[in-house]
């Protein structure tokens, strides 16, 4: 059940789950043609947050922001748990900047299975705090985003295998159209310094503990 190959051949319980979820959420099966906004590099597709909110990818999540995005799925038992725990550390290092100055997003690689409800469970299980949205949507839209984010392999066999999915965290500053990445499995402080690098409001890219709050 770990590969999109199996899902897309339309066999097994996965397909049933897909139908059920689509019925319950009235999500369109696939956007007929993804909207590519003029000057932007990312399609402005519709996604759903783990909180059940409908959002436009570019307008609501990216435009003008410093962001960090990765791919995951709730059933992933190989790299996702470690990656998620690692990104949770990054979120802690970001402190109050998370969700205010730096926005973290995780896109599901198995949108048919990862309903907002399942992603909400995932958020609880990993104690993911505010300022980090888990996202799902129509398969075609997720696939399109995946390619625009550089989360693919040119070898189709590797590309369509969820088990070998990307471990990159796409990091960028949309205002400056400045994009790079960090591995989700490297040290949290390394990831933080890459985020701080593209965030022009930050001078020191290394982690610095917050100033102690004055009690006087």
């Amino acid at each position, binding site marked *: 059940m770990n590969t*999109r*190959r199996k899902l*897309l*051949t339309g066999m097994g319980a996965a397909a049933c789950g897909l139908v059920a979820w689509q019925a319950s959420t009235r999500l369109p099966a*696939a956007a007929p043609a*993804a909207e*590519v906004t003029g000057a*932007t*590099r*990312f399609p402005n597709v519709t996604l759903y947050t783990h909180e059940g909110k409908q959002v436009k990818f570019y307008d609501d999540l990216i435009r003008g922001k410093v962001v960090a995005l990765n791919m995951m799925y709730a059933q992933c038992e190989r*790299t996702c748990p470690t990656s998620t725990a690692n990104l949770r550390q990054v979120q802690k290092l970001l402190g109050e900047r998370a969700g205010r100055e730096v926005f973290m997003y995780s896109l599901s690689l198995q949108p048919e299975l990862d309903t907002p409800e399942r992603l909400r469970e995932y958020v609880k299980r990993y104690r993911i705090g505010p300022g980090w949205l888990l996202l799902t949507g129509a398969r*075609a839209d997720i*696939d*399109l985003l995946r*390619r*625009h*984010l*550089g*989360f*693919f*392999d*040119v*070898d*189709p*066999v590797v*590309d*369509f295998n969820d088990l*070998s*999915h*990307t*471990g*990159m965290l*796409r990091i*960028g500053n949309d205002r*400056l*159209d*400045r*994009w*790079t*990445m*960090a*591995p989700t*499995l*490297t*040290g949290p*402080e*390394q990831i933080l*310094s*890459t985020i701080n*690098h*593209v965030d*022009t409001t*930050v*001078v*020191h*890219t*290394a982690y610095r503990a917050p100033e102690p709050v004055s009690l006087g």
Partner: protein
Amino acid sequence: MKSSFLTGCSGKLRPYSGSLFLAKGGQPPAAAVQDAPAQASRRTFLKGGAALMAAPLLMTSQKSFAALPPSPPTVPWQAILPDEITLVYGAPLSPAPTEAANIANGEAGRPPHQRWSEFGPQAEPYELHIAQRDDWVFNPSYPPQRTWTYQAAEPDLNTLAPVVFAHYGHPILCRIYNDLPAEHVGFGTPDVSTHLHNLHTGSESDGFPGDYYSLTKAGPTLTGPGGFKDHLYSNIYAGYDELGNGMGDYREALGTLFYHDHTTDFTSANIVRGLIGFYLLFDHLDSGDEHDPTPGALRLPSHPYDYPLGFADRRFDPNGILYYDQVSPEGVLGDKIVVNGKIEPVLQVARRKYRLRLLNEGPSRFYQFYLVRPNNVIQPFTYIANDGNLLETPLLNQTSVRLGVAERADIVVDFSRYPVGTELYVVNRLTHLPDDTRQPYQVVAPGVRVLKIVVNREPPEQDVSQVPSTLRPLRPLPTTAQLAALPVRRFLFERRQNMWAINGQFIDINVPRAVIPQGSAEIWELTSIDDGWDHPIHIHFEEGRILSKVINGRSVAVPPHERGRKDVFVIEGRATTRVLMRFRDYKGKYVMHCHNLIHEDHAMMMRFDIV
């Protein structure tokens, strides 16, 4: 089955091209003419059942991404390269350089210079500015456009990076100002760290990837931002402490070095922007003076007949503007070869010997260069140095130079063999599959002409330069017993999670993956288990000697041009290369990384510390 499948789906095998080149329907553009056709794929793992399973997925793909369109056509042989390269000269610095970072006066927060008392006071001051300009012309067919450059305080606008001539025994204090705009929009970062590849220097002057700086930014391994940073290039040979002669071991001399941005995560983008230039190092043997009367001086062809040539693969968008894809995990394979900043330029030479110093600037393309007549008949030359290091003896009557990214070759060509008016071409016969940045493909004649050489004049004086039969001796290798007693470190270079890893780990600039006692010697075993990629592995700080090469399980002879000292080791396919390394004279943090800049920026780098 494999080939027919691949042929049938060739348009979809390159499913992504970046948003700039989204197809509006119709046929995908033709692949770059100089490269191999798409159906010649050798992705050997795409076999039988796997292909059949993947096929329906390709068919159901919702979108059609076109292959990256080729760069627009250029008119060749319009730009004339200068007869003499542009040099940069020393000049006093204000404020005066200091051992510790001069933070109060705007220097970035680096650690204090090592060996300051030995080299600092007498170091000759140099000044370089990293700047943006908007008027560079790669080719008359393309509009003037933005590049980033290294400039002297009073820039020569004919070059993107002036050449530094340095001499052993004469330290240089190079102050590098970062004048890039902080609010730069588009690919590249205006926070920079200049590495001098491959000087034997303190880590605080090495251009460590975490040491990037600007007025508004401090890299993770700096204590504070700054508009400039001082680099103490001591210009000593490795073996300085070991020999105690105040100079080091002249057998360790470096010759053809280059400086370039090395900022974590952004090296590829910033080099594509233009941040790369030459630094040539001379000594009593290779003195840079063909008239040198000193006994033993090699009297190789010297300036202006000593001419560095940097080759860079670049892609241009349909408007002729430099293109780079910031999010593609494969990078961008350039289909235009930029030579010293120009596409298809002309170098006019006198009828005499020239020393040409060839560098593959990357980001990803490999080359195999030949010198040919207009009828493609191959012309011989003499190969004298690899990776900037003179060989023990010249290799005569050579016909080709193969360069992985960051590899260098110094060759001597005797143009006195040709009458005035003779036209020659430097051609690249090494192809890549279309848009394949992973490894080169095949050597195919006649190749692509990247530089025209015209013998256009008699020399103003008799050519007194020479290529002696011995160049620079090598320190003898340790005995077999001594080698067997050395510690061995193994490094596995592999594909992992859509990126590339060393020993299963990705770059973490804060954590050394090896801690090495200063003064020690070790054997580093560099191994790749994937045949889908070539990795030109660069080890900072000291040169290595190749002890053995095993490719696909078979021991292969080390080719003659790789029997000297090297700083880039191309791991081709499934291979293991054993290298003798020494770590002398300095301490601190350094890196080893793949110099395919896409691999480097996708985490194939590790820090090592000398303690």
